[in-house]
Structure formats: C-alpha cells, structure tokens
C-alpha cells in the first residue's frame, strides 16, 4: 500500500460558467484538500445546498473532471487511469445517490443494474453465480431477490429502492462508498434504518463512507470525522464531536445555533441572525467567503485564511492564527 492514506484529495477546484450567459467563471469548489486513512471511517461533508459538496463528491467518484487539483486513490490519480484500471477503481469505490427514483432508469428493470454490476465489475460469467451474489447483498440490506426480480423502480417505496441502490454498491465489495445525501428523500421515521446500516457496514464489512449531507443531526449521529463547507471551501474539519460541539468557526456556530431544536425553543426564537448575502458574490470573493456576514470580521479577512490547527480540529479562520 503506497503511503498511509487510502484517499488523498489535493487542492481540488471546479469552475462553472455563470452570470451573463455563463461568461463569468465562479469556483463551485475552491481549493479543497482532505485525506482518508485505510482504517474504515465515516467522513461527512456537511453544508447548505449550493455549497459545492455534491460537486466535490462527483469529482472524488471520477464522474466530474476537476478544473484544478488531483484525487489520488491508493497512490493512483483517478483521472489518469487506463481502462483496465478503471474497472479496478469501480470495484474499490462505489456510490449511492440522493434520489432513488432517479438512480435507476424508470424504463429499465431494477435488477438489471444488479446483474450488470456483478457481470462487469465482479467479472462473474454464468447467471447462477450472479444470482447468488445479488441475493447475498440484497439480504444484507433486508431484501431478497424475489422482492426485486423483474420490477420497475416505480413499483418500490423510496426506502426500499434506496436499499436496492445500497445493495448495488455492495456487490463489488468496495472499500469506499460515496453517499450523496442518501437519506434526504427518505421519510424521517425510516432514515435511521439506513443510517444504522451504514454503521454496521463500516464495522462489519470494513467499508469507509464519505457521507454528504445538509442535515447536521444525522451527521452527528453516524460520522467519525466531519468537514463543514461554505461557498465551495472547507471552513472547519475534524472529529465530529469536537467540530459540532465546540464549534470553532463562526459559520459552524451560526449553523448549529440556527438548527431548529425543540429543546432550545426560546433561545432559538429570541436570537437574531443576519440573512446570508447574494450567493454568487460570496463565491467569487478572494478572501474568506464568510467575511460578508461574519460578526468577527476584520481587515485581514480580505486575504484567504489558511487552515489553522486547534487540538485535532482544522479551522480556516483568522481568529485562530
């Protein structure tokens, strides 16, 4: 194993066209770096919609070519893989998407995807082995081949279909699963079943997860490490308990305080919060992206803050220089 990191994301950026007919370039992801060791872990990337977390997830999955920076998986840059190596990469890294009904082609039977994965990535030839492999993973997610055989996506409930999507990802026996908002479309009462499943897969099958979410409560529940993103930049990163409970960065503080927690009703109603500014303007800002509405703003915030270390938490804010 080359180096002690399984996954290394180094200075990753992605620019999108915007403004007058897409002429102005703005960084949806701006110079993001993080690493994951071989030890199975659930690493969460949390932030509001439009902060760039899904774009980051797609770049890590090798679906979206980054404008700058590299994604190195087990020592290999995933954007310069040869076609055979690409099959190896798909065997090691799989994905679960947000909307189960869009993860599967509404016009194709659901089990077709399970067999495709088994055939193309696991290289199983005869249908008996394929059926067996598919049935094993379906049982792991609490389903069986009979329930799934020959059915179209519209014949499942959201929760069931998301389980099939997880099963599909499990077939190649991956080491890393990137889950892009896997439970946001699932009813609150059934989210726990899937989140618990992630925990079991981490411990039982030793699979690492990159969990993308905007819901900090679920993030706290299952993640070991967490990175908070704002306008394309990681503002704070570290162990989940430290980041979510100590909250060093001003944005993390504001985010947690704004969470509608029944237990903090009166405090929530009285405390005032400044509405965020115009999105694009903040994305393009050279310095700290949160400077526009940050209560602790100073002159130095014009320059981009590096990552400072406080105990084992990294914070990108001049307050901690």
């Amino acid at each position, binding site marked *: 194993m080359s180096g002690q990191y399984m996954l290394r994301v180094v200075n990753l950026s992605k620019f999108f066209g915007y403004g007058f007919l897409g002429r102005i370039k703005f960084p949806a992801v701006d110079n993001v770096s993080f690493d994951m060791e071989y030890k199975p872990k659930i690493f969460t990337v949390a932030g509001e919609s439009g902060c760039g977390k899904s774009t980051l997830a*797609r770049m890590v*999955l090798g*679906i979206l070519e980054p404008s700058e920076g590299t994604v190195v998986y087990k020592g290999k840059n995933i954007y310069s893989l040869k076609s055979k190596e690409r*099959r190896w990469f*798909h065997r090691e890294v*799989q*994905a679960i*998407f*947000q*909307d189960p009904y*869009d*993860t*599967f*082609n509404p*016009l*194709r039977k659901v089990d*077709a*995807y399970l067999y*495709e*994965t088994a*055939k*193309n*990535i696991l290289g199983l030839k005869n249908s008996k082995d394929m059926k067996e492999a598919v049935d094993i993973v379906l049982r792991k997610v609490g389903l069986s081949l009979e329930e799934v055989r020959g059915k179209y996506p519209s014949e499942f409930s959201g929760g069931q279909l998301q389980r099939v*999507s997880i099963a*599909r*990802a499990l077939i190649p026996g991956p080491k890393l699963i990137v889950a892009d908002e896997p439970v946001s479309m699932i009813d609150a009462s059934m989210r726990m079943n899937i989140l618990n499943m992630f925990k079991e897969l981490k411990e039982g099958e030793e699979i690492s997860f990159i969990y993308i979410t905007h819901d900090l409560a679920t993030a706290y529940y299952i993640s070991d490490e967490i990175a908070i993103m704002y306008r394309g930049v990681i503002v704070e990163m570290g162990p989940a308990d430290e980041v979510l409970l100590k909250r060093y960065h001003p944005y993390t503080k504001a985010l947690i305080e704004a969470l509608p927690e029944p237990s903090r009703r009166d405090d929530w109603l009285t405390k005032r919060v400044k509405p965020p500014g115009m999105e694009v303007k903040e994305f393009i800002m050279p310095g700290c992206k949160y400077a526009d509405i940050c209560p602790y703003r100073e002159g130095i915030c014009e320059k981009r803050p590096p990552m400072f270390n406080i105990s084992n938490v990294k914070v990108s804010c001049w307050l901690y220089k």
Partner: protein
Amino acid sequence: MAIAARFMGKIVSLFVMLYRRNLKFRLGFTIILILLTLGFLSFFSPTNTRTWYVAPRDRPPSLEYPFGTSSMGRDLFWELCASIRNSLTIAFVTAMIASHIGLFLGFIAGIRGGIIDRVLMFLTDTFIIIPGLPLLMVVTTVLKRYLTIPFLGMLISIVSWPWPSRQVRSMVLSLRERTFIHTARLSGMSTSKVILQELMPYVLGWHLVNFTNTILFSIGTESGLAILGLSILDDNTLGVMIYWALNWGYALFRGIWWWLATPVVTLVLTFVSFYLVSMGINEYVHRLVR
C-alpha cells in the same frame, strides 16, 4: 440482429398500444393504411400507368372510372395508386436516411460534446440557413437525366437531416445529466451499452416523431419540385400528376376539375394523416419523458 428485432418489436407494440388508446394516432394510421393499400394495388394495375392514351380522355368520375380520366388518356384511379406508391417510397427513403443521419450525428454531438459538438452544430446551422427548396431545384435540374425515385429521396434527405440531429442532440444532452447514467457507468457499462440500454428507450419515441415529420417534409418538397416540373415527369408521383394537370392539361381552365382534385385531395389526406400519427406519438413521448 437480436437488437434490431427487439427494436422492431418495441415499435410494433408501441403502435398497437397507441392505436387502441390515442384517437389522433388511430385516425391518422387508418388513413395511412388506406393509402398503403392503394399503393399496393398499383402492382395490379391493368395498364402501364406511364403510357398515354390507354383510356378514353376527359371522362368525369363514373362507376367505370371512379376518379375519372385525364386528358392524357390515363385512368386516374390507377395513376393515383402508382403515384401514392412512388411518393411514399421517395418519402420513406428520405426519412430512413435523414432521420438516421440526424440520430447518429445528434448522438455523437450530445455524448462527445466539446469540439465535435461545436463542429457538428456549426455544420447543422449552416445547412439550416440554406433554403432547401431553391437548392433542390438547382440540384434536380442539374441531375435531370439521372433522377430515379429512390435517388430523388436521397437528394431530399440532404436538406432534411439537420432538424432531427438538433432534436436528438438536445435530448441526449438533457439525459446525460440524469443520475441513472452515472449508475450505469459505475455498474461498469460501456458507452455503447449505455446508449443502447439507457438512452435508446427515450430517444426511440422522438426518433419516430422525427421519422414521420421527415416523411411529411419529403412529400411536401417532392410535390413542390414536381409542380415546377423538376421531378421525374415521365414517372408517376402525386406532384407530377398536379404538374401535368396544371401546366399541360390546363385542367383548371378546361373544367376538368377531377384531374387536379384527385392528387390535391390525396396529398392533403397524406399530410394530415402523417401529422396526426406524429402528434399521437408525440403525446405519448411527452408523457414518457416527464
């Protein structure tokens, strides 16, 4: 070939389902069936419809001559059958070539993107601004001697491929962003498999709509050329019938209205029926994509 068979199977089942449930499609398809039977009958025509003076001239429609006879001494019923057969063949040839070129280029532009997409788009835009009819008028005069029915179909397809290609391209671009394309890639499916298994079910509907619209465009263009005397005048097509009736027989001034009415009414019926079919499929496809 299995894929082609499955492909045809899907189209047949789609037609049967639409026939039962979509009024517009049913109306249009029945008229087309009538036209096809007439076209088929032309193989049993007692006389060669391209020779003159085989029937008494200028007879109004009667039992013996259901559509009457023309000043050229031809029984208009049999001439009409032959004309329908030829016009539909030309249209079919154009549609087969143009809609498939369009499909192919649309897919490449949509999937590849980048430079290829820009080049193909530029090429399509150039062809779109060139006025189709006048250009074809020039081409048909130039190649007057070599014109045959299928060759004329090919010529018309030169100007009719850009529309389907643009349509397929925008379709592919919107589908490319859908999540199930990523799922397919992550399931190790090759690009060609993604096209066939994932994109084709959606594009098939639109391809049929483009196919019928190209048929409409081709019949319209051929009849336009024929009226100007630029089609294959010694053969039979609906346009050629109008040409002889108008420019040679002066059917209008000499009161032989049935000579002109037969091709014009048939043309109108052809246009309307194919349009109804295309609308029927369009309604189905819209519901599918939503």
